[in-house]
C-alpha cells in the first residue's frame, strides 16, 4: 500500500496544486469583498460560474474563426472577466447597496440577500442557456494548441499545458492585486473604506464608487478563474459554482479573511489536502470510503480552523469592541 501511495504522490501533489490555484483565485474575490464590507458574498460563486459559462461560449463560437489557441484563450479570459465583473457591479448596485443605504444593523439581512442573489444568478444562467442551446451540461470545446502535455520527473507527473497556463495566470493575478491594493491610489482608497467607511467618506472618498470598483475587481478575478476552471475541468453546469465557492471561502478563512496572500496560501493548502484525501481515502480504507468524502474533509477543515485559529493562518486578531 505504501508503495502505491508513494508512486502516486508526485501526481497527487501536482493535481492538488492546480486545484489549489483555482480555489485561490476564487478566494481572492471573497477576501476582497469581505475585507471592505464584511459581507460573505455568496454570489461570488455564481460570478465564478458566469465566467466559466462565458469561457465555454467564447470557445464554442470563436474557435472556428480564431486559429491560435492562446489568442482564443486570451479573448475568453478578457470577456469572461468583463462579463463577470459587470455582473458583480450590478449585483452590488441592485442588491447590496439598497441595504447599505437603509443602514440595517442586522447581519443576517445582507447574508440572506447574498444567498438570494446567488439563486437568481444560477437559474438565470440556466434559463439563458436553456433558451439559447437547449443545454444543461455545457462542454468546453477542445482546441488542439491547448491540449498538449508533458511528462515530468521521468513520467512521475503527467502535466497538461493548460495547467501551467492556469498557474501562471493565477500567480499574475495575485501579484497584480497585491500591487493594486498596496501601491495605487485606488488601493489606498479601498483600504481606507475597509478601515472605516464613514471616516473615509469624510476624507473625500466616495465609498459607493470604491465599493463598486472592489466588486468589479473581485468579480473579474472570479470570472477569469471561471474561464480557467472550464478549460481545466471541461464540464460546466449553472450550479457548478456552489462547491468551489464554498471551498474558496474556506480557503479565504483558512488564510485569514481580508488578507490577499492569505487567500492564496489558504487555497493552495486546501487544494493539497482535498486532493490528498480524494485520492488516498479509497486506498487507505480499502475502497470502503470513496472520493465523495473529500468534501466532508474540506468542511471539517473549515470547522477546525475556525475553532482553533479563527483569524486564519496569516490573519490578525481583531479586538472585540464593547
Amino acid at each position, binding site marked *: 500500500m505504501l508503495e502505491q501511495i508513494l508512486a502516486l504522490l508526485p501526481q497527487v501533489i501536482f493535481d492538488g496544486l492546480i486545484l489549489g490555484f483555482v480555489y485561490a483565485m476564487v478566494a481572492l474575490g471573497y477576501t476582497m469583498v469581505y475585507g471592505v464590507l*464584511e459581507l*460573505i458574498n455568496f454570489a461570488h460563486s455564481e460570478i465564478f460560474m458566469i465566467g466559466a459559462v462565458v469561457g465555454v461560449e467564447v470557445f464554442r463560437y470563436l474557435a472556428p474563426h480564431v486559429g491560435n489557441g492562446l489568442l482564443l484563450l486570451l479573448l475568453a479570459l478578457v470577456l469572461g472577466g468583463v462579463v463577470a465583473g459587470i455582473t458583480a457591479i450590478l449585483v452590488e448596485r441592485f*442588491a447590496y447597496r*439598497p*441595504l447599505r443605504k*437603509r*443602514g*440595517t*444593523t*442586522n*447581519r*443576517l*439581512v*445582507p*447574508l*440572506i*440577500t447574498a*444567498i*438570494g*442573489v*446567488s*439563486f*437568481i*444568478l*444560477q*437559474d*438565470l444562467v*440556466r*434559463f439563458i*442557456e*436553456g*433558451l439559447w442551446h*437547449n*443545454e*444543461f451540461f455545457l462542454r468546453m470545446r477542445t482546441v488542439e494548441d491547448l491540449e498538449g502535455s508533458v511528462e515530468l520527473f521521468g513520467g512521475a507527473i503527467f502535466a497538461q499545458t493548460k495547467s501551467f497556463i492556469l498557474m501562471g495566470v493565477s500567480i499574475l493575478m495575485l501579484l497584480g492585486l497585491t500591487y493594486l491594493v498596496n501601491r495605487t491610489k485606488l488601493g489606498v482608497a479601498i483600504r481606507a473604506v475597509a478601515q472605516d467607511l*464613514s471616516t473615509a467618506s469624510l476624507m473625500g472618498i466616495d465609498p459607493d464608487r470604491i465599493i463598486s470598483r472592489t466588486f468589479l475587481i473581485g468579480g473579474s478575478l472570479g470570472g477569469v478563474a471561471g474561464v480557467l476552471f472550464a478549460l481545466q475541468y471541461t464540464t460546466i453546469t449553472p450550479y457548478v459554482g*456552489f462547491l468551489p465557492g*464554498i471551498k474558496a*471561502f*474556506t480557503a479565504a*478563512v483558512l488564510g485569514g479573511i481580508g488578507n490577499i496572500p492569505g487567500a492564496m496560501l489558504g487555497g493552495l493548502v486546501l487544494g493539497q489536502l482535498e486532493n490528498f484525501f480524494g485520492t488516498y481515502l479509497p486506498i487507505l480504507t480499502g475502497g*470502503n*470510503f*470513496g472520493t*465523495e*468524502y473529500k*468534501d*466532508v474533509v*474540506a*468542511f*471539517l477543515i*473549515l*470547522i477546525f480552523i*475556525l*475553532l482553533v485559529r*479563527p483569524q486564519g493562518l496569516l490573519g490578525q486578531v481583531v479586538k*472585540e*469592541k*464593547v
Partner: protein
Amino acid sequence: MSVLSLLLSLAYLGLVFLAPGALSNLFGLLALGATAFLRLSPTWRTLNLALLTLAFTLGLVRSGNTLGLIGLVGILVALTTLPRIPGWIRALLGLAILLLSVPMAGFANTFIFELGIQIGIYAAMALGLNVVVGMAGLLDLGYAAFFAVGAYTWAIFGSEQAKNFMQGNFPLPGEYMYLFMAIAIVTTALTGLLIGLPALRLRGDYLAIVTLGLGEVVRILANNLDHPINFTNGPQGITPVQRPPIEWFRELMGTLGVRLDQTTDYQLFFYLLVLLMIGLVVLANVNLANSRFGRAWVAIREDEVAARSMGIPLLPTKLLAFMTGAAFSGVMGVIFAAQRTFVSPESFTLLASITILGMVILGGMGSIPGAILGAAALTILNLDVLKTFSEFVRTSLPQIPSQVDPAKYERLVFGLILVLMMIFRPEGLIPEKRHREEMAASPEGKQGGEA
C-alpha cells in the same frame, strides 16, 4: 364601504355557485383583500370573513381549483392579524377552516390533502427554525440535516433496511412510528448537540457557513453510507417505509359519519396528525418564548456581549435553542418518511434548508403566525403555482424547449423573493414586535456597529 365589501363577498358566493373555477376564485381573493384592507367595523368584517370561508370551501369542493386554498390561508392570516375580532370567532372560524373546509376539499381533490400535509410539515419545521433563527438569532443554513436525521431514523427501522446491519425482525410494525417520533427527538437533539458544540462557539457569518458545511456533510453521508455497510441505501433512497395501522381511525371516522376510502384515509390521518403536531409545536413555541430560556435567547440575539455580562451562559443557552429546533424538525422527519413511504437524500439539500429559512424570513423572524404563513406561501408556490404555470406554458407555448419549464426555476423565484424581502420588508409579512423595531432603520443604529 361596509355594504360594498359585503356585496363583493356575496357576489363571490354567487359566482362560486354558478361558475366555480380559477376566475371566480380570483374574484374571491379580491373580495378577501377588500375585507382585509377597507375600513370596516369588526362586526361587518367578521360577517364577511365567515361568508368568504363558506364561499372558498364551496369553491374548493366544486372545482378543486387550488386558488381556493390560497383564499383559506388568507382568511386564516386575516383571523390572526386583523384587530378587534372577538376571540371566540377567531377560534371558531379557524377551526372550521382547518377541520371542515380543508378535509371537505380534500375529499373532492386529494391533492389538497397533499398540499395541506406538506404545508403542515414545513410549517412545523419553520416553527422549529424560528426558535433558532428568530428567537436566538443564530443563522442556521443546515437545518434540513435534522429533518434528514429524523426521517432516516424511522426509514431505516421502518423498512427492511435495518436487516443490513442488525439481527431482528424488520421492518418494525407501523405502530412503532409513534415510538420513533420520540426516539427522533433524542437522535436529532443529539445531532444538534454534535453540530452545535463546535459551531456555536462561532458567531454570525461564520456560524452560517459552518452550519451550511455540516448540513452538506449530513447529506453526503446519507448519499454514501450504502457502503461498506448499507445504512441509507445511498442515492436510491429507502422504500417502502411502514405507516402506522389506522383501523381505529377509520372506525372513529365511520362513527362520525365520514366514510374513508383507500385514497383518502391516510391522507386525512396524516393531515390531522400534522395539525396536531403544529398545535403542539406552537404551544411549545409560545411557552418557550415566555420562559427564562426564551428571554435569554432574545437577550443573546439583541446583544451577545451584554447578555454574557448579565450572567447568561452563552454556549449552553444557544445549544438549547439549537437542540430544540432540531427536535421539532426530527419529529416532522419521521412523519414525512411515513407519509411518503419513501426517503432519499434529494429531500435534504441546501435548497431545502434555505427554503425553510426563507419561510421564517418571509413570515417575519420570531413571529409564530409568520412562520406558518411563510410555510404556506412557499409550499403553495413550489408545489402548486409554479407547476400550474408550467402546465399552462407547456400547453399554450409548446415550441419553448423543456429546459425553460417554469417549474425548474424554483430557485429563481425563491431568490427574487429573498432579495426583494430583504430590500423592501426585512421584518417579514407578519413581523414580531421587537424585530420590527430592530429592523427599522435608526440613524444611531448606523454607527452602532456590529450587532
